[in-house]
């Protein structure tokens, strides 16, 4: 039923993501991707403007290496481990996308609308991607973590603050998916 080159089943994927987090804890580190955004700001000289960025970012180099690996992993998965049979959505989802004029997957991970050179530099899509990214960056730092730090690590460690943050993630996500997207597209 499942092919190695198609969509990996949720139970294998979830197990491996849990394993990644447990491995990093075993190495004495904490799984958290959004911290790298702060590190990148510090490297770029943001410490001149706020003491939030004046910290020992060199102690975070291991996390940048994880990110580099993740980028390589994404490259390997897309170029060598995919047969184009993935992203089979619920037909109801595809119908809704159609109403918003967002192209159906046809095996692609992202809509053409958000990836093609012809569309991403239009003011609307450029602004959409930039502003969406801004909310993700601002919100994850404000909440002290993102999906990896709160939803996976914090929840696994039974942290109440992480549960509050994850509730926020879903409140925001539901508002965006049900009200903002139909408004924008």
């Amino acid at each position, binding site marked *: 039923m499942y092919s190695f080159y198609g969509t990996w089943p*949720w*139970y294998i994927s*979830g197990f491996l*993501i849990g394993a*990644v*987090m*447990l491995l990093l804890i075993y*190495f004495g580190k904490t799984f958290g*991707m959004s911290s790298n*955004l*702060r590190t990148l*700001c510090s490297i770029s000289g943001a410490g001149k403007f*706020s003491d*939030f960025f004046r910290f020992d970012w060199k102690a975070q180099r291991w996390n940048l290496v*994880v*990110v*580099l*690996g*993740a*980028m*390589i992993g*994404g490259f390997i*998965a897309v170029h060598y481990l995919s047969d184009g049979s993935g*992203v089979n959505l*619920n037909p*109801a989802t595809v119908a809704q*996308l159609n109403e918003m004029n967002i192209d159906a997957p046809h095996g692609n*991970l992202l809509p053409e609308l*958000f*990836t093609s050179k012809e569309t*991403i530099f239009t003011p609307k899509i450029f602004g959409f*991607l930039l*502003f*969406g*990214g*801004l*909310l*993700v960056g*601002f*919100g*994850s*730092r*404000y*909440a002290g*973590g*993102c999906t990896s730090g*709160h939803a996976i690590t*914090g929840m*696994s460690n039974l942290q109440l*603050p992480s549960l*509050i*943050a994850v509730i*926020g993630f*879903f409140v*925001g996500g*539901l*508002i965006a*998916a049900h009200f*903002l*997207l139909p408004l924008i597209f």
Partner: protein
Amino acid sequence: MKFIKYLLVGILFGIVLTKSEAVSWYRIYEMFQFQSFHMFGIIMTAIVVGVIGIQIYKRNNVIGLDGKPIQIADKEKGFKNYIIGGTIFGLGWGMIGTCPGPIFILIGAGFYGIGIVLLGALIGTFLYGLLKDNLPH
């Protein structure tokens, strides 16, 4: 070569998130429409595995690779920053369908347009650094 293990874990992470399609804008949209169990299954399985693994670490006082007993810092107490920050994050996540990990993974996979999202995320992080003392926490 102490960094090689982080590189390998990162590669595994990137492959799993791509092959599970957790990096896909479509899957995040479908999740927020409650039209598929896929993403919920991934997150819940990861948490169940994580809870069991962390309990094993803690109850057996497992020694980490650095020779010290494994310790996981508790998150700071708070409410407003978690709920407000979390909701702002969620608004972005629901729009562009990429949380910070997938932003990097997708760029690595060759979706260079997501560089615009990364730029936005860096600006957002920078703005938080500028404004944090004026925000409710």
